[in-house]
């Protein structure tokens, strides 16, 4: 969004002769979604195994949704596991009990993520700061315990199993998406869709208001915006994207673990977002990539992998508060062009 505007402003001041590097930077900042799509198409061929790539873009999508809350609107939610988990369980339950259709399942997951955010958002949004964070946490834990106890529906502690492996129904033919690479591109389709949607939203007047609310709530209010509603709407969008990510994750694992609703998941997504850099498209995906890659590699080497991951996180928070992407952008001196 703002890439385009700031880039437009930037283009005006760019010297007539640009180095190839400048051109690349310029192009990337002009078409972030196209650039990311291109990158993600190549991505599964550079990671150690394709399932990791899938996992990274699913968590990146989740972080992207979370970022609508944290990065763009400035709401620190500590309960996003709720929408992710609800999305996961919705997909699983729909596929098991209602209709073996992947599209329908994912639509339901997105919808239920949004609805849960609508209800919980209504209850939380009036509070700010620490109260907001704790309320979101409390409600997410509430859902966790409901899922934990409701064994008949959710499988309880043992998780939801026996999600049917259904092929992807397209008009006229169906595709088996259980090949790792095919499934990756299936997920990528939704990631690109979410990116485009989000870009559109953030470029709209509503997107501007979101930032106004983040930067200065009383001022936004004095300009005539009902900031509570703006937050609420952002919260719902965030919940819906998280729900979609949850649905994809359930489809990916053919299994929903009770952990998907647990507060640790909420903490993890916060960590991923901070690690990558808030308030940008690319940041959450970088955060997810670094987090999951490190976890994957380190935990295969040592059982004390958490020490290393924790150290990376602490260093990031202390010395690179803009996250990996934010710092990178600063370093190449294209702050105005690339940031956000």
């Amino acid at each position, binding site marked *: 969004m703002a890439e385009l505007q700031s880039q437009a402003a930037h283009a005006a001041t760019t010297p007539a002769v640009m180095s190839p590097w400048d051109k690349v930077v310029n192009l990337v900042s002009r078409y972030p979604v*196209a650039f990311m799509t291109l990158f993600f198409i190549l991505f599964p061929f550079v990671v150690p*195994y394709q399932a990791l790539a899938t996992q990274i873009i699913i968590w990146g999508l989740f972080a992207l949704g979370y970022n609508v809350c944290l990065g763009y609107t400035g709401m620190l939610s500590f309960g996003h596991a709720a929408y992710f988990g609800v999305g996961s369980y919705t997909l699983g339950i729909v596929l098991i009990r209602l209709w073996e259709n992947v599209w329908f399942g994912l639509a339901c997951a997105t919808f239920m993520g949004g609805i849960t955010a609508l209800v919980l958002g209504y209850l939380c949004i009036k509070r700010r700061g620490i109260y907001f964070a704790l309320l979101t946490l409390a409600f997410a834990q509430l859902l966790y315990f409901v899922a934990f106890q409701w064994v008949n529906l959710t499988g309880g502690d043992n998780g939801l199993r026996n999600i049917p492996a259904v092929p992807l129904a397209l008009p006229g033919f169906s595709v088996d998406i259980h090949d790792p690479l*095919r499934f990756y*591109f299936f997920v990528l389709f939704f990631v690109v869709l979410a990116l485009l949607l989000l870009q559109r939203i953030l470029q709209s007047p509503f997107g501007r208001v979101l930032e106004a609310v983040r930067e200065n709530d009383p001022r936004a209010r004095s300009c005539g915006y009902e900031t509570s509603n703006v937050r609420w709407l952002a919260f719902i969008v965030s919940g819906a994207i998280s729900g979609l990510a949850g649905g994809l994750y359930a489809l990916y694992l053919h299994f929903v*673990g009770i952990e998907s609703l647990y507060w640790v998941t909420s903490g993890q997504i916060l960590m991923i977002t901070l690690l990558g850099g808030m308030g940008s498209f690319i940041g959450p995906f970088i955060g997810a990539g670094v987090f999951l890659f490190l976890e994957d590699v380190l935990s295969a080497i040592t059982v004390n992998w958490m020490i290393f991951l924790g150290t990376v996180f602490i260093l990031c928070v202390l010395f690179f508060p803009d996250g990996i992407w934010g710092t990178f952008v600063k370093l190449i001196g294209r702050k105005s062009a690339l940031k956000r």
Partner: protein
Amino acid sequence: MPEHQKGKGKGVSRRTFFKTTGVAAGAAALGGFHFVRKSQAASGPLKLGCPLPLTGPYGTEALDQQAGAALAVAEVNKNGGVLGRKVELVVRDTKLKADEAARRAKELIESVKVELMTGCLSAANQLAVNEQCKLVGMPYMSISQSNEITERRDASVYTYHEALDPHTTTQAVGKWAAQKFGKRWYFLTSDYAFGWQLTDGFRRVGKMFGVQDVGETKHPLGTADFSSYFPRIMAAKPDVLIIDNFGKDQLNTIKQATSFGLKKKIQLLCPVLLASARLGAGTAAYEGVVGGTSFYWEQNHPTAKKFVAAFQKANGRPPIDYAGYAYSGVLELLNGVNRAGKLDALALATAIENRNYDNYKGKQWWRPCDHQSQQDVFILRSKTPKKKYDVFEIIDTVSGANEALLRTCVELGHKPGVPNRTGLKK
């Protein structure tokens, strides 16, 4: 970025949209031509996947499982491997989280290209791994307790369960305790499937012996402080306190119950008495505690002695607790493939089903309908050690013969006597 104003590039241009979606769609179509390199590595080492909760409250037991599996692999390799190929054990940490276990199993299958799977501790973890294995038709040897894994919904032609399950454990220990101790029982239950199933099992067997259920306290997995539960337990005046938990939870319960003076009036009973917890808590804390087990290393039995000696040589200590499951389970899996003569799930099932074997603890038998291993349960009492690791004495053996301790095939949703062919992939 408050300073940005409205610019020219508002909205996604149609061109950008088509470009991106077009590329994505093209790539997806291209993905269709991608073929999986499966069963190509037939010449290299045969990889055996083994996800275990190395970090978390069951870490000690998981390390024991790892050592047991490694010993079995080493023995098979020494005898020429599997179908002439060396076997390689690939261990992954599940952190005791089910979705992590599922992810790890997926990684092992898709990236490491394992051809057989074992491992896991905790019901949720093994069910998640089983799910992944069923999906791709890979044999999976489960080596920790679960009731569900042999039930119709989760069991399959690919699934094997070497360990005891909570039902068997409680039938054996409960029957024994009902005859030896008082009839007022109180339950301290770890609040998840494993704990619930233990408590349910005890209630079931207790009824047959006229046992009175005087109360239950549930605690979350990984509780540090149990002392706040004890006044209520004391007030209920039970004869027996049944401690339906595992790992560090068991250690903390018994340690704190001892310092609280609970043992003066109440007999402590652990369905799964762990040497690891006993070693951690010390002699005084466990004095007089009785419980059940699948295996104890001082058992006087030829195969047990052989197993313990080999384990001791490799690890410098005797096997405790769950090493036996892993050792025996991995042996069954690998030797089964050798007997089958090819790496084929159906041939393996035929080679294993209805088999009588004795790998480390006495007679065991693979029941065909659910791939559950029938075995004996031992009753242990904690004692003052004469040497290190000499912590229990076997005071009784509850025979598992003739499916006495197992749920019936019908109860589990299988046809009795018919080999399990659920979920078989063509």
